[in-house]
């Protein structure tokens, strides 16, 4: 008799099996999302050791509280919420200064961050190797202030909806939207340095 492998099984079936105590099914859910959760944790905490703690705490908590997962959201959204809470707790514990507050008033000031206006090639990322590109993208995200960074990571990297992001970060929908805009504009500005069309910057350094 062959036992069907959990890989490739539908997520809701895996969750149902895991809730019945099937540890292999839970293991498969972990393997599916560990990379994303680790990346998210690294972006928010900006510290490898904290990110590893967050990764472990997230899946341990998820396992422990699996009976509380109602299935009205995706399993992934549910664990992202756990991971975000764990990561923010780490961040607050590590730096108690006000710079990590997610509740501070933010000036959207869009016009102050559109100094660099240069067109990009169609697929400018192809100029770089995968490693170089990863480095450029990670460094740019990590240079954002925490309130913008968390919103950007959840919305545009982890691809949560505006509402899911608001819920995970305990923010209002308008707050998520204004921070996302600011984050996107700041990143656009930072990446322009690497991705602008060659020849368009003849006067940029004069």
């Amino acid at each position, binding site marked *: 008799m062959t036992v069907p492998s959990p890989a490739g099984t539908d997520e809701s079936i895996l969750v149902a099996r895991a809730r019945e105590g099937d540890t292999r099914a839970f293991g498969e859910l972990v393997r599916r999302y560990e990379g994303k959760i680790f990346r998210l944790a690294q972006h928010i905490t900006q510290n490898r050791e904290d990110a590893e703690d967050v990764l472990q705490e997230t899946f341990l908590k998820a*396992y422990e509280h699996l009976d509380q997962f109602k299935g009205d959201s995706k399993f992934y959204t549910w664990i992202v919420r756990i991971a975000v809470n764990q990561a923010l707790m780490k961040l607050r514990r590590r730096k108690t200064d006000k710079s990590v507050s997610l509740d501070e008033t933010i000036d959207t000031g869009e016009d102050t961050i559109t100094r660099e206006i240069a067109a990009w090639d169609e697929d400018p990322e192809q100029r770089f190797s995968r490693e170089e590109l990863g480095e450029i993208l990670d460094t740019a995200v990590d240079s954002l202030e925490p309130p913008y960074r968390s919103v950007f990571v959840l919305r545009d990297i982890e691809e949560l909806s505006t509402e899911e992001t608001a819920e995970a970060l305990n923010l209002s929908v308008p707050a998520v939207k204004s921070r996302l805009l600011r984050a996107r*504009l700041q990143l*656009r500005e930072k990446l322009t340095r690497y991705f602008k069309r060659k020849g368009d910057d003849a006067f940029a350094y004069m």
Partner: protein
Amino acid sequence: MTPLLTCKDFLHELSDYLDENLDAELRAKLEKHITECPNCWVIADTTRKTIKIYKGMEAYSIPTDVESRLMKALERKMAAAHDKV
């Protein structure tokens, strides 16, 4: 006559425009603005590309030592849960 959109108004709506979350009327106004304003066109285009590049980023596979510690922690947890039953 509807009032003309300023660059500031355009930037304010940029995220919803790129996420296709706007009603047809406002969308049409924004599209008219970018045909007439090269700076806003560049900002919209490069912001769209920024989002696309990040969305296409692969989640890195986690380091093997990190994964093996995670699996060990889970095994301990699962064994403890099993003992309780």
